[in-house]
């Protein structure tokens, strides 16, 4: 069975995020006040063939740690995509 999984990859806390910081600095000029701690990241959608949702998440977690993220600077978070 196919399970639709979302993998979010974000920079670890404490790792500089020049992209997020630049976005944050641009917001007040556009009239969006009161927005802080902007962190930029990546999002992947995958269809994972597995017997159960848990197994699909486990598979996604493994490939997220091996390939989709660089554990030196990034954290990966996996979740099922609500249809």
């Amino acid at each position: 069975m196919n399970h639709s999984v979302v993998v979010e990859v974000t920079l670890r806390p404490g790792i500089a995020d020049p992209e997020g910081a630049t976005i944050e600095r641009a917001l007040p000029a556009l009239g969006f006040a009161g927005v802080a701690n902007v962190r930029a990241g990546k999002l992947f959608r995958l269809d994972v063939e597995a017997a159960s949702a848990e197994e699909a998440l486990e598979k996604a977690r493994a490939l997220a740690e091996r390939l989709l993220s660089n554990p030196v600077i990034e954290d990966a978070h996996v979740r099922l995509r609500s249809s």
Partner: protein
Amino acid sequence: MTRVGVVVFPGSNCEYDAQSAVDALGAEAQFVWHSTTSLEGFDAVILPGGFAHGDYLRPGALARFSPVMNAVRDFASKGGPVLGICNGFQVLTEAGLLPGALQKNRGLTFLCQPTTLIVTSTSSVLTRAAQLGQELVIPINHFSGSYTCDDETLRQLNDEGRVVLRYRDNPNGSKDDVAGVANEAGNVVGLMPHPERAMSTLLGSADGRVLLEGFLEVGARALR
């Protein structure tokens, strides 16, 4: 004659610069396609700059899985001299052969300019012929060149003399001004600047020579 394998990934673009530099120093460079599984017969290996596998996902993230990387790992584990320049440095960190990671530049711009480097350790195959504290003018040409690692790793690198080159005027936000690092044994080195493009004063600088000469000498010793 010292034989240098220059690894070529789909998307590499500095392999000819590397070849030309190696030739100029009297060694012989041969291109090695990324699907190659052995580096038998080579005395030194260079991973050149470029955009291996399009830099998709992250620079070096996909190149790390190219078959040649197992051969590079074997070559390095036997003490063979390995040099990663720019994208090659990114590949070596992704492959776990060097610590840390390269992030987007602090200013989020592509940087292409001469930089002044300071030799901060001579116990590596790349910096062995240079003088401690020597300043070298070498160009950079990158978007993701901001070196980072955790504080503990940085402390260890500093303590063990493995930060081999630092920027005098940090151009990209690299942690502790790191421009180049070595592995524990000193035979694997990666740096963001391009020593192979600093081979002639006519073209701006010949300061890359002392680095590559030292590197090739290690390869030559392997012949004896």
